[in-house]
């Protein structure tokens, strides 16, 4: 029985059924199928939400091992696990005992810890991009010169200080955005759309199995 359940054909069949359940009602009016598809998509949202502890368990496994073996920097792992547990527990949907997304500790940690940390993590790239602009952005050949000139004009075009006194910079920046950039992104978008359709067809045919890899078996 276990051998039957292990067969790769089962998840492939599930993928095909789930895909067709969404696509067919869109093109053919079959009320029973449409209602089933709506319920199925709601069910999938619950299935996705159920995966919430996967990250927590992975964190506990990785950092737990570090603490156990007392590898270099193991004390930082104590912080990781500690805050994971605190946020997870205080956010549990049990308002009857004061735990929920409205819990004081949960909201305090979100507002005063996660908010500044999250914002700062992304903002630090400003420094790296500046350093890269100085050290690596070079007009070595025609193509890199085009990137350099277009990029620099775009940067200037986003600065009111420059566009106020040199309004033609704003016009050139708008032209670069509306024409070469638009052409590039339209080409990429159409190509990506065709690619995603091809990938979907391959998945429906059971040829594409990359998402099912792992576990040391096929």
């Amino acid at each position, binding site marked *: 029985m276990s051998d039957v359940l292990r067969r790769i054909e089962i998840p492939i069949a599930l993928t095909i059924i789930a*895909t067709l359940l969404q696509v067919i009602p869109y093109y053919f009016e079959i009320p029973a199928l449409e209602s089933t598809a709506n319920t199925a998509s709601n069910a999938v949202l619950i*299935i996705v939400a159920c995966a919430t502890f996967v990250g927590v368990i992975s964190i506990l496994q990785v950092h737990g091992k570090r603490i156990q073996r007392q590898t270099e920097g193991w004390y930082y792992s104590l912080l*990781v696990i500690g805050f994971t547990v605190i*946020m997870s527990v205080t956010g549990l949907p049990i308002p009857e005992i004061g735990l929920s997304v409205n819990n004081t500790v949960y909201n305090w940690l979100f507002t005063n810890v996660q908010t500044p*940390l999250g914002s700062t993590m992304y*903002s630090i790239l400003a420094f790296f991009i500046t350093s890269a602009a100085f050290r690596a952005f070079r007009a070595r050949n025609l193509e890199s010169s085009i990137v350099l*000139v277009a990029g620099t004009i775009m940067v200037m075009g986003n600065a009111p200080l420059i566009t106020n006194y040199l309004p033609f910079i704003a016009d050139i920046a708008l032209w670069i955005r509306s024409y070469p950039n*638009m052409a590039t992104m339209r080409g990429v978008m159409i190509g*990506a759309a065709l690619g995603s359709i091809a990938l979907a067809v391959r998945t429906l045919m059971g040829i594409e199995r990359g998402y099912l890899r792992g*576990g040391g078996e096929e």
Partner: protein
Amino acid sequence: MVDIAVWTAVFFTLGIYSILYRENPWYRIAESVYLGVAVGYAVGQDLKYIRDQWGGQWSSSGGMMLAFFIVMVIGVLWYARFNKNLFYLYRWPLAIVVGTGIGMALKTVIFSQFLDQIISQANTPFFVAGDLVQTINNILVQIMVPSVLLYFWFTGEIRDSPPMKVVERIARYTMMAGFGSAYGYTVLTRYSLFIGRSQFLLGIPPNPADARMAFYVIAFIMLASMIGYDLFMKKETPEE
């Protein structure tokens, strides 16, 4: 009176920025806390959604309750990934989620990202009466978009043919200008984020005014500790 909340936020902000000087314990502390809080945060939101869903259509009838139970069992199968013998069960919820996602995108991607774009391209007139600049721009678009498409579609030996060499050159120059444009906007985004954090650190309204004092004090402590440590280590290990 010291506002612990503000000083905590400033501490973690500067902890992350301390990496700009070099790798250091302040950064490691901030990074570790961020990882823990970010992972734990999503748990509350996701479980709340499940509980709310039970309060809706899923508890409306016996059949729906049974369906909810089956859905929850499938949801629990995610955790089979942590067991080597049961790993194959993890593929079942994954297959359902991936299949639904593919179906959702597949049904309308042909319209929104393909047909609508091609229609817009086809509707771009080559010639605009009385507007030479727009005419030139439209002709450029009619040359650039197909060039970029052909550049991606045709690879291999066919690229060596003379017409494709011209197409390839046009496509590369177009894409280089496009990437330059993307770079310019990336600079805007990153600096906007940095400016937002700076407004917080300086206590500029509507941010709390306490933040400025916290910024000065904590920045001094962090910089002094890192520079002091470096000077101390330099003395201990003189350069050869």
